[in-house]
């Protein structure tokens, strides 16, 4: 009797304690089960300090100098833009080597073209990183000024990436924030206007915040002037192709507004033309007074890994466009992509800028292996010249040439084209630098000036497209002209612009396939 009573008490204690254990375990589970990697920083605990924010910002800068996508292809925007234009052919070692470039050059572009996919992937990588930092910056422990500047830089780059995408592909999905999980993978393409409006509003916001410095005085980081110039370029392209104004939140970006930003740049930025056109693309001019927006390349860390080219800081365009020369102290083993057309050489005539723009076969020492579509002309602006050789690592990955995306000369010409009261002065300024006489600042003359002044800088193709498909067709088809130094079959130079595509690339097939039917292929493909 006594014992059973004792047992009853025991059982009460027991059942109670069991219930407590049971419910405690159910309740406290969140802390117990919330495990984060112990020996690695993860996204959930990384974005804390100003230092973290800077590293995150640098990852956005990192993407802007990407010229390849892992497992897809090499695709420097600069080289590919010129291959599309009437200034360069495809090139490469042989017909197979440059097969993807050749599709772009001749406008027989397959939807599976890997370069096309690479360009798509690169820009969305940048957009993701910018969006991610825009989301994370809110909770980072930092001063408001610091945050504002980070936000402005992210928006500048987001605009840059979107502009590159939309002018290449036209119909693209617009992501203003990161994708949060598999349920959001499927997106739809947005209206072109929406994309350009985001570009405009991002840039207007950046213009208001970014420092009023030249890049050279801002440690190579983007400035208010970079944003102003990029906005003018975007407006001109939009206005040329679609016609009309952009809506940047409350601000309407029309001709006058776009112009006013760069007029301010011209007046008060401190940017100038570098006196000698011949040193523009030399190391000495990097981040110089003419560089309104410049993407840096370098040889640190010395890169060896062919499997992950994104890890390198080198300029792949310079590697691709360089002549295949061995045994020379001045040029080393480029891949002879994007050989320059006879048409461009002819366009220069006796324009003194030819010498600083086009590298003639006759200038080469050492032994030259002639590549596919060998014309005897190479780009001199971005090439495998000795000055830009990397100090260490695999030489292909470490070319140090910075990519001058927007030069002050370009800004002057844009201002002239946008109808600045000082248009004539601006045009004269550009021409007089190279000792050319003044010509009337007509739109035609300004555009002709752009062709030569900015040749082989990745600008020409889009300048053609914004002049309308008729101009584009005439000019692009005309590049088939064969020069005296050409070697090979006639037929491979034949280029017929496919106007039904309006000059846009196809949406990469993989992306169409993965979209579950929501992505519509571009017209003409």
């Amino acid at each position, binding site marked *: 009797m006594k014992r059973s009573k004792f*047992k009853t008490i025991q059982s009460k204690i*027991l059942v109670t304690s069991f219930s407590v254990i049971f419910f405690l375990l159910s309740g406290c589970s969140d802390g117990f089960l919330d495990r984060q990697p112990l020996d690695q920083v993860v996204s959930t605990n990384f974005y804390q300090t100003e230092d973290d924010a800077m*590293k995150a910002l*640098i990852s956005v800068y990192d993407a802007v100098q990407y010229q390849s996508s892992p497992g897809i292809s090499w695709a420097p925007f600069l080289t590919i833009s010129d291959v599309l234009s009437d200034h360069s052919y495809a090139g490469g070692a042989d017909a197979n080597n440059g097969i993807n470039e050749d599709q772009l050059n001749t406008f027989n572009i397959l939807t599976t073209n890997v370069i096309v996919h690479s360009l798509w992937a690169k820009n969305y990588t940048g957009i993701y990183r910018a969006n991610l930092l825009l989301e994370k910056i809110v909770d980072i422990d930092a001063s408001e000024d610091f945050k504002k500047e980070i936000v402005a830089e992210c928006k500048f780059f987001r605009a840059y990436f979107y502009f590159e995408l939309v002018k290449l592909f036209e119909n693209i999905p617009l992501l203003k924030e990161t994708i949060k999980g598999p349920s959001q993978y499927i997106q739809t393409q947005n209206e072109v206007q929406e994309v350009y409006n985001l570009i405009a509003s991002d840039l207007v916001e950046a213009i208001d915040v970014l420092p009023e410095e030249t890049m050279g005085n801002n440690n190579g980081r983007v400035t208010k002037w970079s944003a102003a110039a990029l906005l003018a370029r975007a407006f001109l392209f939009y206005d040329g192709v679609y016609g009309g104004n952009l809506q940047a939140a409350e601000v309407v970006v029309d001709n006058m507004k776009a112009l006013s930003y760069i007029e301010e740049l011209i007046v008060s930025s401190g940017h100038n033309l570098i006196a000698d056109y011949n040193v523009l693309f030399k190391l000495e001019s990097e981040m110089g007074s003419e560089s309104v927006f410049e993407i840096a390349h370098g040889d640190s860390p010395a890169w060896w890994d062919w499997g992950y080219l994104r890890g390198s800081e080198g300029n792949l365009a310079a590697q691709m466009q360089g002549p295949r020369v061995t045994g020379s102290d001045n040029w080393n083993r480029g891949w002879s992509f994007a050989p320059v057309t006879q048409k461009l050489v002819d366009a220069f005539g006796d324009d003194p800028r030819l010498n600083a723009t086009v590298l003639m076969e006759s200038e080469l020492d050492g032994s030259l292996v002639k590549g596919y579509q060998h014309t005897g002309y190479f780009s001199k602006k971005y090439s495998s010249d000795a000055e830009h050789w990397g100090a260490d690592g695999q030489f292909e990955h470490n070319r140090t040439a910075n990519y001058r995306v927007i030069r002050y000369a370009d800004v002057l010409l844009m201002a002239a084209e946008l109808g600045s009261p000082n248009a004539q002065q601006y045009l004269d300024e550009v021409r007089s630098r190279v000792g050319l006489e003044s010509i009337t600042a007509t739109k035609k003359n300004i555009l002709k000036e752009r062709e030569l002044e900015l040749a082989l800088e990745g600008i020409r193709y889009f300048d053609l497209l914004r002049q309308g498909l008729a101009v584009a067709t005439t000019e692009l088809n005309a590049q088939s002209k064969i020069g005296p130094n050409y070697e090979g079959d006639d037929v491979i130079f034949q280029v017929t612009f496919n106007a039904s595509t309006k000059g846009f690339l196809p949406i990469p097939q993989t992306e169409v396939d993965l979209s579950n039917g929501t992505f519509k292929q571009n017209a003409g493909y």
Partner: protein
Amino acid sequence: MDKTFTILIIILFSFNSIAQNLTGIVTDSENNEPIIGANILIKNTTRGAVTDLDGNFTLKDVAATDTLIITYLGYQTLELAVEGKSFIEINLNSKTSELDEIVVVGYGRQKKREITGSISRVSDETIKEVPILRVEQALQGRTAGVQVTNQSGQPGDEPTVRIRGIGTTGNARPLYIVDGMAVGGIDYLNPGDIESVDVLKDAASAAIYGARAANGVVLITTKSGKAGKANLSYDGYYGWQNAAKQLDMLNADEYKMLMNEGARNAGLSEPFDLNEISTFDTDWQAALFVQNAPMQNHQLTFKGGNEKSTFASSLSYFSQQGIIGGSKSQFDRYTARLNGTHNINTWLNVGNNFSYTHLIKRGIGTNESFNGVFSSALNMDPLTPVFESDLDVLDNPPYNTEPVVIDTAGNVYGISEDVRGEVVNPFALLETNNNETRKDQFVGSIFAELEPIKDLKFKSSLGVDLAYLLDDGFRPLFYLNGAQFNDDKTSVNKHIQRYFTWQLENTLAYNKKFGKHNMGVLLGTTASEFKYENLFGFNADVPVNDPENVYLNLAQDTVWVANGGAAASAILSQFGKLNYNFNDKYTLTAIVRRDGSSRFGVNRRFGIFPSIGAAWVISDETFFRDFEALNYLKLRASWGINGNQEIGDYQFVATIDNTRGYTFIDGRSVGSSPLFIENADIGWEQSEQLDIGLDAAFFENQLEVTLDYYVKTTKDLLETIPIPAHVGNAGPVANVGSVQNKGIEGSINWRDKIGNFKYNVGINASFNKNEMTKIGNTEGILVGASWATSGTITRSEVGLPIAYFLGYKTDGIFQNQAEVFSHINGSGEVLQPNAVPGDVRFVDFNNDGIIDDDDRTIIGNPTPDITFGFNAGASYKNFNLSLFILGSQGNDVFNGSQRQDLRFTNRTTQNLDRWTGEGTSTSTPRYTWADNNMNYRVSDLYIEDGSFMRLKNIQLGYTLPSNLTQVAKLEKVKFFVSAENLLTLTKYTGADPEIGSFSSFDIGIDRGIYPQAKTLRIGAEIIF
């Protein structure tokens, strides 16, 4: 027990009459051990007795004409007439029916009669029969539905265990629970310590292990002591292992002839003068296989206890050398164990299971195209000697210029003049292999069981599993050939790893019988945490060339590498089980477990795993009484959902990559962004299974039959899939894809006794069909394993088995030029323009007019249709004989042990039957060094039938008569002689058809597999 005693006392005092007293002893008829606690009842009375610790009993007032009824759980009830005796010896036969045994289930034990799912059991007696190093091997061929394949013949390699097929493209290993503790690996366990292994095959039985049960659950129970006399026993054996088979390779003359032909057919000059007598004709295999490689096991067990406490402790030593490499491929294990239970008072029991293991493992590559020891032996030319002793040769390069490999006696290993690439002298390769792993592991648990009121039991247990691993590596200077050498610096590395798991479990069980209703309720919680840490160090330039004595501090270079990391995971669960049985006839079981795992994203951190099962003992129905032969029939059905959480840690979170960077004017700055995007939705793979089973027994359990049908579908397989590029980062692992296994498995056992001769035979077989039912990427394909230089040879595709062999179909050999020209496509173009007579005719499988990669199709399936085991045992007086056969039917093997892409490699004698002219062969192409037709591309010519039947074990034992042993004061002495892998019947031409899975995609690929040994053993069992 005390209840029985009370009744007994009442009985004894109530009937105090004057008949004579009877004493006796009750023993087990098998081993003559006393049975403690057997009930003896005088028929037609309520009077009886219970045997004491020595099996003795006393009954008062027994009439000469009385009959005794002797009952004991697990034994056949016996009726015995007293016939006026005053002392009586009673032998009880154990109820050997498997259908009546008690099996271990999740968190408890249950009568097999009440089981609603599908559980297979292997007992210690069976485990003892075959010399196994690892517990998994005890299941091989013994349990229907469990496919166990030795990965190779290397001692200590983990065998592949697949319960009811491969249900995942990830980790398909079952969950091992040892004495209630979930353990990561079971190489620490001494098989001699095991009492039983119970395999939960169906989802309903396994559901109580929730998110870890999808690949099946193996419950291992270690031995415990019994109340009664303490005993000390020794078990041990010593064995000699030898190669079971040698491939027929070309001898020197045949080799030279064939190489000349290969060169001639390629338009090259012949490398050998056939008239010259070869200096060497090395049989590399014969030289390589170790003769009588030793294997031994010794164990001391001390067991005993009284009604209050029991204990079982053991010490064991196991050592096995490989038949390839000897001490370079060796496994040694020392174990110590102490299990105990203590009855503190009427309501409290406590107990413990402690084990400590020290093991040393040295291994070589077991199935490698490149740099495999055995594959080198198969491909090395016979003209090269094992040792080069010609001084003229030794005075020339490379011998006098390079760090050529020398054995401990100073002999120089020969280097081939012709064979290149990764094919090298296998002895020299072995000599350079200096990897060793040492492990110290403690696995222990303590538990307390309280019974505050009758039938209500609370059990709390705490277990830990702590292991330290130390890996050593030493890379000496060596020169194997022009492609394989290290003439720079020696190097040394050490890697120390610590694994620690703790597990706390609390269960509350209540069992109650109300009339014919029998109810059981179980509620429980588990919390478990796993932690890992490691430290790795490396440096080069060690002046010592003795791998046994190389330490990091000796290294003199400045290229120090040190790194280390950590990981942790946790599981938290609640579970419940409801068992209801009516009249021993109808059983219903329902289980639900809620698992929370730190491995899953926040959105899917918890999962619910339900199951339900029912059983009906039809033979207990009144309408069934007419079927006399069939004495037992039970129908079972169960359904449940299990999970698989083996996806690695932290898959839900994105790690930050610091390799981003940008060059500002002041230099390069480091940038950081996530390596891949987060997937907070990541969760377990989910496996749903339906099982329908039947158990039947005929002729008073002489014949027993079990049959099961199951359909198991695994959904949400975890894969990294391509995601749209606009996401902006690499994709995470996500739940996509599904796979289905369905099959039938069954076993039939027969036993009989004719006088002193007892025998039993049994067979079990499993038929399983495996099919991918969904793959969540655009291509609908998962790329699988690759072979040598040929790239992918297996892959997964919807509608086909999980890893099928991919290659070209062939259609014989072109006998003449006319046949080449007539092998054309629809437009009349020759399909193989590069072919000449003697080349292989490939099939334009997709009929598109060209023969290219798209013509590759399924050419074989590595997964067997049927796996089976056959066992038989017989005993006569003191002798016993057992044999055990296992086999596999319908599986293909990819025979890739020969390097077809290299010139000068040796070939099998099968090549003597090659095509040499019209009509000479329709299956083996001509031999040429210029393979323009790509005869050796991956095709069905590599696929062979891998079905086999293997006499795994045959054993003869002799137990010394008890009168002899009693003189020596011994309880039992038994000797045995045993042979393993004595005979293998197979059509497979390679070294061994039993090839393990190296992943879910890498099954049955012979890259020169380390074959299993043929073993002869003698052993003894002595109980003191």
